[in-house]
């Protein structure tokens, strides 16, 4: 046997496998991921095990605080923790929608961005684009969202489209900046010199290198979208009865602080811990995917 067969060359490590091992080594991100997974599972299948529908009201136990002794007073779990859990399922479903919205934002951003880069040389066009961005940034963000909600009615699918329609601005800026810096790299010049056409350069060099920042920003965008959804729901502009979300629960809990403070505490706890977990994962991803930035 030859030497080479005995020691096969180590497989080259790709950016993604590298990033994955770095992410796993990051304890905060790792446990946040586990926590989120647990949260998703609890919210998706938890409601089937409590034996109560989330919208059943037990008139005799309206103000009973939560406790851990479930039977023979099953309504106690019906009161807060399990209630938050069951309702969280709705939030989880929306959460998928949020992700959908983020993906819409990403996909919407990219073609527009390519256009920006292509027109960048013609400075008058660029000047006009920047004026438009100026105007959009001076328009109060909340006004925009509220107007979209007013337009689209209060259907939550449309609401997410509305949110995405606003949030693509930042994504477009980030992708644009990245594209500009990638365009000037030596390997792109080398590819150009070798005669690769611009579609090839875009597919082989620009987009793969864009994916990292886009993934990072998208992860950090999810908590923002959740906060925005909760904010709108808090004011009754988002998810409508009988559906519910953590924002709705917090708003209702706030109105019941003196009588039943657990109605505020549990949804707040769920929302905040989820947001924390998402942020840690986002930070972990940034460290994992962008080793220069450490």
């Amino acid at each position, binding site marked *: 046997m030859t030497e080479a067969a005995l020691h096969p060359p180590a497989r080259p490590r790709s950016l993604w496998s590298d990033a994955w091992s770095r992410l796993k080594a990051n304890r905060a991100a790792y446990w946040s991921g586990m926590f989120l997974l647990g949260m998703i599972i609890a919210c998706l299948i938890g409601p089937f095990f409590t034996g109560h529908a989330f919208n059943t009201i037990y008139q005799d136990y309206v103000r009973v605080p939560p406790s851990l002794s479930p039977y023979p007073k099953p309504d106690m779990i019906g009161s807060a923790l399990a209630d938050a859990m069951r309702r969280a399922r709705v939030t989880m479903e929306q959460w998928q929608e949020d992700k959908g919205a983020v993906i819409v934002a990403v996909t919407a951003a990219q073609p527009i961005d390519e256009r920006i880069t292509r027109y960048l040389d013609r400075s008058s066009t660029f000047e006009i684009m920047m004026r438009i961005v100026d105007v959009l940034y001076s328009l109060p963000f909340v006004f925009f969202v509220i107007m979209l909600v007013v337009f689209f009615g209060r259907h939550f699918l449309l609401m997410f489209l509305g949110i995405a329609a606003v949030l693509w601005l930042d994504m477009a800026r980030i992708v644009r900046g990245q594209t500009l810096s990638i365009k000037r790299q030596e390997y792109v010049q080398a590819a150009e010199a070798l005669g690769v056409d611009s579609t090839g350069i875009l597919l082989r060099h620009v987009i793969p290198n864009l994916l990292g920042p886009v993934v990072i920003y998208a992860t950090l965008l999810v908590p923002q979208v959740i906060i925005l959804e909760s904010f709108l729901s808090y004011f009754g502009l988002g998810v409508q009865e009988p559906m519910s979300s953590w924002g709705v629960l917090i708003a209702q809990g706030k109105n019941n602080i003196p009588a039943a403070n657990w109605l505020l505490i549990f949804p707040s706890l769920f929302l905040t811990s989820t947001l924390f977990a998402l*942020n840690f994962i986002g930070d972990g991803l940034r460290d994992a995917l962008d080793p220069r930035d450490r």
Partner: protein
Amino acid sequence: MLGYVIRRLLTAIPTLFLIVTISFFLIRIAPGGPFNQERGLNPMVKANLERLYRLDEPLWQQYLHYLGDLLQGNLGPSYNLPDFTVADLFRVGLPVSMELGSMALIFALVAGGALGIVAALYQNRAGDYAVVALATAGSTVPNFVVAPLYQLVFALTLNLVPVAGWGSGSFANMIGPVLTLALPQLAVVARLMRGSMIEALRSHHVRTARALGLSDATVVLKHALRGAVLPIVSYAGPAAANLLTGSIIVESIFAIPGIGRYFIEAALNRDYTLVMGTVVVIAVFIIVFNLLVDLLYAALDPRVRYD
């Protein structure tokens, strides 16, 4: 410098014009109107009201009227608060929002800046980790969670402060809203300051100052801080515009008579003039503060010159 200021103010005019135009037509295309209530007004009363407020004219005429009024500084009457003009509402509400906002801004800048410096000086030690943890919490926990929890703990359980209300700006009433408003901004300021201070402490001019035997306090506060404060200055502009024009959430939770709450109410009631007034006020704040930031930047950083 003066020429630059004038040029910037002139370019603000088309921006403002576009904002007014976009928001005017946006809110007008939205279904419903200010007098479409659930019970329904007597059609004749409604027609009279619409004639009174010129709502029966074609849209372009209303738009021109609105622009004309706006140029004379007239924001029009409020449709849903019929005894008040939009200017009246702002005259009462804006000072409240601005007082609250400026307190929150000062607190966020001073406390956030101080925490950032501490974190940078004790990098990777306990103090640093505490500041980073606070910054993470501040930017993660949304203010509609912070505010009710503050009320629950400090007002209802410990009875230290009033639950809500303005109390004509008494200190006890201010603590909660100011903290809630300031916390997310404080988090960002602390994080920015930490980053730029760490960089500044490594720079050559700071090393030179140390070599000259200057005291630690002088080195940090006089030589490192001047460069490190620049990113915070550019962040403070939009943050100030944001804070001074009132927060919808904080003002509604703490029942504060500022202008933040008008925004959602007015949009939902199709109170056209009030919505437009709020948009104009906020846009003017954003434009003015961005200009102020650029000027301040030039004053702090001699490499930046405007001519």
